């Protein structure tokens, strides 16, 4: 078995290259074949369907870019959904990312027991799929809701507030609940990343004249965990743009005046209720492009870390 790690074998035929890299394919193909069949193929089919009209029962009919034209020219609700999605993503994405990083960094110095304990508390909301239903009880619209009961008891309000139906409060509540459950994937990968940093970097840094904790964070810690930062960014982007289920479970579907209607809600409306799969696929493709662009921008920002 000849392996050439991190070196490109030059001037050989493709067949020879594949043969000499047999071990690499043996390592990667079992996973990749499954990934390709159950993830890549469905995505490619969906992108193809976005150029068709398809009601699931009959064969798809090719209609060119009609779905895309309709989305931007003829669908007012979609425009509202874009606006809401971008507001939600712009607030919850960066806040949850920075919060995850800050909490992970702050608890990194604690002793083992405290660190494990705090990690459990902060991660618990994202452990259970149904935990967010608690918020519908806390903010229920009648006097039995905790928020209303509490405020009425203090005499601040006389009438129960319809928290989850009044557009004035809906967006804020969705943001709060999203942030509440957002110390998830990125948070844990930051914790593991921080703990994996080689101690000798810090000793070398002390010799090189690192003066305070901020310098240490910027010049040593963050650059050492750049791959985890990138991972966290991708996860944050994909979850910030995919807010939808929270909205449905919190304020119902559709939300009053579409006040917190997101692109995902719109997509689920067409894909899951109306069975206009062609149109739903076009919406998914547009969302996909928005995430790719955001990812590019964030990647450029992250490459400046430690400079």
């Amino acid at each position: 078995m000849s392996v050439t790690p991190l070196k490109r074998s030059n001037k050989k035929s493709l067949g020879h290259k594949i043969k000499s890299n047999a071990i690499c394919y043996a390592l990667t193909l079992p996973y990749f074949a499954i990934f390709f069949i159950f993830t890549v193929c469905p995505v490619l089919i969906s992108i193809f369907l976005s150029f068709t009209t398809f009601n699931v029962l009959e064969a798809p009919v090719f209609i060119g870019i009609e779905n895309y034209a309709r989305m931007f020219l003829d669908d007012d609700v979609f425009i509202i959904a874009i606006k809401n999605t971008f507001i939600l993503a712009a607030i919850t994405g960066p806040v949850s990312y920075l919060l995850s990083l800050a909490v992970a960094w702050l608890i990194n110095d604690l002793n083992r027991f405290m660190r494990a304990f705090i990690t459990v508390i902060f991660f618990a909301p994202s452990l259970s799929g149904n935990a967010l239903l608690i918020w519908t009880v806390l903010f229920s619209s009648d006097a039995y809701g905790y928020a209303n009961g509490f405020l009425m008891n203090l005499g601040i309000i006389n009438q129960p507030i319809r928290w989850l139906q009044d557009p004035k409060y809906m967006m804020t509540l969705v943001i709060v609940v999203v942030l509440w459950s957002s110390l998830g994937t990125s948070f844990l990968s930051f914790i593991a990343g921080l703990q994996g940093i080689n101690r000798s970097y810090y000793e070398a840094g002390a010799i090189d004249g690192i003066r305070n904790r901020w310098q240490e964070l910027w010049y040593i810690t963050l650059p050492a965990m750049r791959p985890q930062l990138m991972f966290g960014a991708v996860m944050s982007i994909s979850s910030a743009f995919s807010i939808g289920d929270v909205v449905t479970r919190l304020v119902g579907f559709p939300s009053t005046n579409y006040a917190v209607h997101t692109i995902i809600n719109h997509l689920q409306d067409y894909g899951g209720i109306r069975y206009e799969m062609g149109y739903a696929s076009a919406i998914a493709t547009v969302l996909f492009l928005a995430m790719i662009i955001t990812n590019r921008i964030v990647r450029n920002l992250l490459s400046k870390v430690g400079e």
Partner: protein
Amino acid sequence: MATAKLAKRTKQLNRSLAGNLGVYTVLFILAVFMVLPLVYTLVSSVKPLEEYWVFPPKFTVDHPTMKNYKDLFTMLTDSMIPFSRYLFNTAFVSIVGTAGHVILSSMCAFGLAKHRFPGSKIMFSMVVLALMFNTTVTRIPNFIIMSKLNMLDTYAALIVPAFGSSLGLYLMKQFMDSMVNDSVLESARIDGAGEWRVYWRMVMPMVKPAWLTLIIFSFRDLWNIGSTTYIQSEPLKTLNYVMSQISAGGVARAGAAAAAGVIMMIVPITVFIITQSNVVETMGSSGMKE
């Protein structure tokens, strides 16, 4: 002398007492915000139904009872399919799916992180891109693919796609990039270690925090699988599906629903505590070796 001076300097990087206090206060407030809703579920699960409707609503419980749990188990044992069957389905899918995903994705991540070969870059970018495509619209194509492969209504419909989930590969690859030193692997190869040995004996121990973290992500997602179009026959349905049927029963079942919520949370939280305490342990011991 020199080392003492160095140690003193590293010490100085720690925060002041006031800073510490500030940080702990903020962490404490955040922690309360995080944990209160969960405490509420726990409290509700031992709250008798009468106490659900008092005004002003109370966070605490006056007469804690296990009645909600008893009701829940009565409902579960009265169903056509025994509760143990649903529990087995979910446990089986979660354990096999997680194990397969961790092994296959870390193998592939090792191949992609430490070797360069035709197709490696494309493979990796496809995985990262896949994280950004919403799964609502891929459900129908997936359904068709599974029916062509005769996988519908089998455990495989839930387990096999989980093996190839994109999250694990990306996570493992990123950790191997930052935590595995190429020169160490190179010297092992010179000593005659094959690639499989390098992967299993050297790389995997080095990225232990990564796969311990991946276990909890994968386990959580599989444990929470509820109703899905891929599974139609009742004996193959999952625990979360049954629990959500109970929660859908309305206000009269509020207590039983809270009990169901607690039970659904217990297992992932236990798995989480076990894996997370090991993440910390690994790092402690590897620090000694350095």
